[in-house]
């Protein structure tokens, strides 16, 4: 019998700093909810709106796999490994913080609001050498399909991390239905609805809702509205 946890959009943690309007699916910064600490190896899911030209100055990280997916706009990244890049909507960025890295993240556009998802996963090994990657995703490949955008395998398309996790993005026509098979025994899936309305294993989800499902090997998915867009995070429940 599968287990589930539902996080409705309006139950997320919220912090409005003026230039930054952040919603936290899990405890983060000053938002603390003992029942929202993590979903397996998934520790952070932040949905950030950042004003034009604003952002996070140089700050450190260690021992965390950090994935950034811009949904609208572009983010300028600079880090202590010497990487300097702009990541636009349609791209994905990954950083293994490992033994320690410092970076800044700023809205690259002066007059356009940036919306991004920042996702942190516990790594499957501590103190790895820091690494950085970013890729342009083929957005057409996710039409009525869960397009794999992240995996543990360096030989797969798109990005990889130090964790037995697989991320997939899909954008669906209304009434399109499919199953998603969990990639590894013991993993669960956390679904985050980017836009539209979908039904997953009988649960109706709207924009920015999250649903975690585990103790199953597959989930049933159906799009209820046109252009429904969903991010699936297939992560170890024990790590």
């Amino acid at each position, binding site marked *: 019998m599968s287990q589930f946890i539902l996080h409705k959009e309006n139950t997320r943690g919220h912090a409005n700093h003026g230039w930054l309007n952040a919603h936290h699916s899990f405890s983060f910064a000053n938002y603390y909810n003992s029942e929202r600490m993590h979903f397996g190896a998934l520790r952070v899911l932040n949905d950030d709106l950042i004003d034009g030209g604003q952002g996070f100055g140089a700050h450190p990280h260690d021992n965390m796999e950090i994935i950034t997916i811009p949904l609208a706009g572009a983010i300028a990244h600079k880090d202590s490994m010497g990487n300097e890049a702009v990541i636009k909507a349609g791209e994905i960025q990954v950083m293994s*913080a490992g033994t320690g890295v410092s970076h800044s993240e700023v809205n690259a556009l002066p007059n356009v609001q940036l919306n991004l998802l920042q996702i942190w996963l516990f790594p499957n090994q501590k103190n790895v050498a820091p690494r950085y990657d970013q890729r342009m995703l083929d957005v057409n490949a996710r039409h009525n399909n869960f397009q794999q955008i992240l995996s543990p395998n360096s030989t797969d398309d798109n990005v990889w991390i130090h964790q037995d996790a697989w991320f997939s993005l899909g954008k669906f026509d209304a009434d399109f239905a499919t199953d998603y098979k969990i990639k590894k025994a013991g993993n669960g899936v956390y679904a985050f609805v980017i836009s539209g309305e979908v039904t997953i294993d009988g649960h109706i989800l709207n924009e920015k809702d999250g649903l975690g499902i585990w103790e199953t090997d597959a989930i049933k998915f159906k799009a209820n509205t046109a252009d429904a867009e969903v991010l699936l995070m297939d992560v170890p429940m024990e790590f």
Partner: protein
Amino acid sequence: MQTTKLYIGRDAKITKIMRRLLNARPEWNGFSVCTDDEAISICHEQVVDLVLLGNGIDQDCEDGLKLELRAIKPSLKIIQHYGGGSGLLYGEIMEAL
């Protein structure tokens, strides 16, 4: 309630920031060090409630530190700190204490 935390990590820049973060609330008192000897010294001199293990501490050092620090205070809570900054720190401390 006033609580005292000690962060141990090998990256000096992160360690310095952690010291500031661990003293960012009126009820928090915090120390941060890069070496095991400094950590042991602080635990002898202060009543530490929580130790956070940060970056770069290999398994042998971690095991050794736990033995040494718990010999000083058997009830000492020792946890892994992830992320190297403010994002997870508050939640980790709230969960531990």
